[in-house]
């Protein structure tokens, strides 16, 4: 399970880093992103959705969020 920690990374750098990380991952892989509460969790999921990845779930854990997605086609 790929876990990518974007806590402490502000917008839009967090999205850009997520995007770049996903480029090196195989299509169909399940990936988890750790995101801060606030703007990051409100913006990053839909930006990744717009990039064609399949969002599977979002959970709050200890004040931050875990976004689970399946890497989509390029």
């Amino acid at each position, binding site marked *: 399970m790929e876990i990518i920690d974007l806590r402490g990374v502000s917008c839009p750098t967090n999205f850009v880093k997520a995007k770049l990380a996903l480029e090196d991952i195989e299509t169909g892989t399940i990936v988890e992103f750790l995101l801060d509460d606030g703007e990051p969790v*409100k913006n990053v*999921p*839909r930006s990744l959705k717009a990039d064609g990845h*399949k*969002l599977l*779930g*979002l959970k709050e854990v200890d004040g931050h969020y875990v976004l689970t997605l399946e890497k989509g086609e390029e």
Partner: protein
Amino acid sequence: MADSKIDLKNLKAGGFIKERGKDLFTIRLRVPGGRMSVDRLSRIADVAQKYGKGYVHLSVRQSIELININFSDFDAVVAELGEDQQKVASCGARVRVPTACGGCEYNPNGLVDTQKSALEVDEKLFGTATGHHKFKVCFAGCPFDCPKSAINDVGFQGAIWPKLAAEECIGCGLCVKSCGEGALSTGADGKPVFAPENCLYCGDCVKVCPTSAWKVEKRGYSVRVGGKWGRRPLVGTLYATFLPEERAVDFISSVLAWYLEKAEGAGRVRLGDIILREGSASLLEHLRKDFADYILDQTILPQIIDTQLPLR
């Protein structure tokens, strides 16, 4: 001072504004929605370079203004700008060039095509004489309302009404998280519960939904009427919700008709001041004739802003 070689048609259109300097004028260009192709911009730069004093001004209503133009160069400037490509704007008691934000074309927040609306209004209503005062219209793509729709005579703000397809919802809670207005809360089954009385129609729920379970049921404009700024500012108030985009021109025409009728004999007065005098019910009733599906049952008067001057 009048030069018989100047085309007075150009002057009558407005947009030629006298400056302090002898024989010098500002030429206000017509740029609906503030959208400018690079080719046009380049041509404007050439003309400004040739006839001006080295700079232009970007006006607060998205125009490019050529500064320090000698009146004897008017016809040449208009010709070199190319009448089919770049026209001159208006001033005085006319419908002005509509302003607009980027809308939904490239801005992920935009809910409606404000640029399309601005171009349509510009084509059909720009320059219409009101007989009384200026008339300003603008289009905002969403409730962030960057163009400040409520301080225009008629201001449009993009809006959507959301609807949940519960079977497609994965209970992720992102919509509840995104809603800043308290219109969404988490239900016992983990799916969102909608409180429509708190909804501003911003569509953040729809935008953030990972499975598109939230869908757009209705899309249109929230329309405010009666705004103005200047010495005695008024904030316009809501007359219609979810007005379809294609009806914007007709709506403005209807408001103009009411304005012209009620302002008869009142001289140089803005729409908002006429509404203060006649009451909002009169305008609501007039608009209800053609826009019944969208007009509010009632609204409030234009809101008077206290500028604190003169000091008391």
